[in-house]
């Protein structure tokens, strides 16, 4: 993955709008958060292969950290903290935010085909 290039990502968000797409959305601080730090609290959520059709998507942010919002007919998809992106060989838009040690903290991915289960 590469540091987010906001114009390039926006182009891909536009390409994937107004069609049936599959979304992987995830955030986590890891299953060991409270094991290594008793003051920490484990949180995480993921949705794999949510089928949506968004009206428009937008990436906003600066200083290397970005937010992405997808406006749906009846709601929103939102991710904060993505800082890297990639258009993979299957033309899937992968975005993620990693901490300094390279650990994934948040991911938002959009694909025209379902992600591998």
């Amino acid at each position, binding site marked *: 993955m590469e540091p987010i290039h906001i114009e390039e990502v926006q182009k891909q968000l536009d390409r994937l709008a107004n069609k049936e797409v599959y979304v992987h959305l*995830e955030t986590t601080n890891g*299953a060991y958060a409270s094991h*290594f730090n008793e003051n920490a609290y484990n949180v995480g959520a993921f949705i794999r292969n949510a089928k949506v059709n968004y009206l428009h998507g937008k990436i906003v942010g600066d200083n290397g950290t970005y937010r992405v919002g997808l406006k749906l007919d009846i709601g929103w998809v939102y991710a904060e903290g993505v800082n890297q992106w990639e258009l993979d060989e299957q033309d*899937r838009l992968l975005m*993620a935010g990693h901490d300094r040690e390279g*650990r*994934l903290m948040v991911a938002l991915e959009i694909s025209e085909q379902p*992600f591998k289960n």
Partner: protein
Amino acid sequence: MIDLEKHVVVIYPHPDDEAFGASGTITQFRQKGIPVTYLCGTLGEMGRNMGNPTFANRETLSDFRKKELIDACKVMDVELRMLGYRDKTLEFESRDEIAQHLKKILEEIEPSLVITHFPGHAVHPDHNAMGAAAIEAVRLMNPDSRPKVWAQAISHDHVKLFGEPDVINNVKPVFDQKMRTIMAHRSQAQGVLGSMNGNAESAANMEEVAKERLGYESFYTWKFD
């Protein structure tokens, strides 16, 4: 502690659980010529560590980890079977179905010892779920042909609750091999070792920290009934 077993089966959910938790013990069994089979529940699809610097992403991670798992098993010289569950979801699957799945494999291999996680005391929900299913699988077997079970606890309070584990293996004599097994998990090793000690910057330092933290592998012999 390393008796002449007939066959040892290790049951953990993630590629690298075997490396950090039991690769020293596994090596000691293999040195005595005892066959070892690793039943690995998932491919660690939802792991946070993507390599450092990152080289994997959420969609490619499982391919990397599968290869790392195969490499680690080559280092340990053990048979590998991948069970095909998905990372983070084991506790939501039917425990009975997983137990039946495991029981079928155990009845085929007929091990004399099973190593798994101590349910409820293994920190990660997948560890707890896989350990519970493994112990249920053995419980369902004919008591006359049940293997022994060594259950590994990771929680901070297990010694307070249950006393010292009855099996404590000093694996420092085979630590080079344990470290090679850990390092075979290229996408995970540095991140996991780093979270044990944030100051371990150099490789040598990291190995020292690892030896301190991982030089003993301990288990509770499970009591059925």
